[in-house]
């Protein structure tokens, strides 16, 4: 779980760094150039995509089997079980935020990777899409879910990999996932408002 999740974490960092060129204010020149560069190195991109896909499959598989094991480990539940500790919105919604992200991933790839570019410009397609309130809103909601997912994911990964559960690392997790989710959310928000 932790390892496959961390691979996606790595991807997200790169993806965000690249996509922030959307906001460079040059009518998409930098972004389209960046997209073009990526498309020019399929020998690198395709294996990466395959690896990410495999990691995703494993991640989902682990999630499903963990949920099943958890259900099997407590076949009869409580009438009442209250949280008094570390359980958070993020940790208790991992499965839901995960499912939402999975759906989003399909939509996102379909829209932008396989969508019809406007005049050959991916930037224009993105601009067009985020001009619609529904699309921008959908993206913003998903980014909130992503942020929550990443928050529990990172601190949980630290713990699983035996690093630590110390408050510093917990705080670091919050900061990091805020930057990533916030960064991504900035794109549809800015483009809708600027739009």
């Amino acid at each position, binding site marked *: 779980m932790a390892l496959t999740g961390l691979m996606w974490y790595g991807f997200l960092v790169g993806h965000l760094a690249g996509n922030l060129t959307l906001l460079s204010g040059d009518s998409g020149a930098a972004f389209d150039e960046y997209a073009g560069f990526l498309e020019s190195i399929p020998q690198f991109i395709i294996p990466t995509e395959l690896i990410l896909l495999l990691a995703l499959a494993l991640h989902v598989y682990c999630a499903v089997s963990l949920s099943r094991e958890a259900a099997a*480990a407590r076949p009869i539940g409580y009438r009442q079980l209250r949280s008094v500790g570390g359980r958070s919105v993020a940790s208790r919604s991992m499965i839901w935020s995960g499912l939402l992200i999975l759906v989003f991933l399909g939509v996102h790839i379909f829209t932008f990777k396989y969508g019809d570019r406007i005049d050959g410009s991916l930037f224009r397609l993105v601009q067009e899409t985020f001009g619609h309130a529904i699309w921008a809103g959908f993206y913003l909601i998903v980014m909130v879910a992503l942020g929550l997912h990443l928050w529990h994911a990172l601190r949980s990964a630290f713990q699983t990999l035996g690093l630590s559960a110390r408050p510093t690392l917990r705080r670091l997790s919050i900061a990091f996932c805020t930057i990533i989710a916030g960064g991504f959310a900035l794109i549809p928000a800015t483009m809708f408002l600027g739009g």
Partner: protein
Amino acid sequence: MSDRTHVGCGCQRGASHEGAGHGGAAVHVDERRVNVMSVRLRVWRQKHAGDKGGFVEYDAGRLTPDMSFLEMLDVVNEDLQRDGDEPIAFDSDCREGICGACSLVIDGVPHGPGQGVTTCQVYMRNFSDGATITIEPWRAQAFPVVRDLIVDRSAFDRIIGAGGYNSTNTGSATDANSALISQAQAEEAFDAAACIGCGACVATCKNASAMLFVAAKVKHLNILPQGQPERRQRTVAMLKAMDDEGFGHCTNEYECEAVCPKEISVEHIAFLNREYLRAQVLSSGMRPVITEA
């Protein structure tokens, strides 16, 4: 769940020999000074492992805030018996928070309100007069209900049997001061060793995982010099035993730490994960090559 209501258990503490405490006839607690309170209990009753079970409600009156929660149940049980009914079965022994026998989920929290306490250390002053209190047993596949609020926790014993010790036969020890252990290290080992094996960590975990229990034991032994020879084997064997017993996995929510009556830290789980990874790496052949001179 069939909710039968059993009201009318008025909890009269009527026997003539009560009221006077230990310490001679001179002792008499002035009953007028005592704050009287009452609560309604919603208790899980189940005759045996195969029974379906359900919640039953009881009214408990004439309680005082100075009573412990279990003393309140004692009072309820005495009344039930006077009426010829079977008392509510629950585990308890030392009644001072160290044996780990008591194990009630009170209003959704293992060991009830208060931090760092066992069920027997919960007092009625933690509840408001007239409150309805729900009492359930630990719930986990690995802790089957034996009767009412009693569960079978022998899975913990079997996990210890798999490796929770140093294999030192009696008589084979060296002098106690032959291995020096820093104060900090002894304290750290003690922090982990303080676990009382009550199972609250399992009870509260949404995955019914026993990671905190296993981690505490592994940490206690694995950081001491005496525990080194079996360090890897212990870690792997105890984790395997935990899986075999049907406990779930840890998804790092740290509820266990919050309900632990001995406030055992989830840091120990990180340690256990580290020890496990280390044991896996070392046993997969990637061990450092030792050349003999």
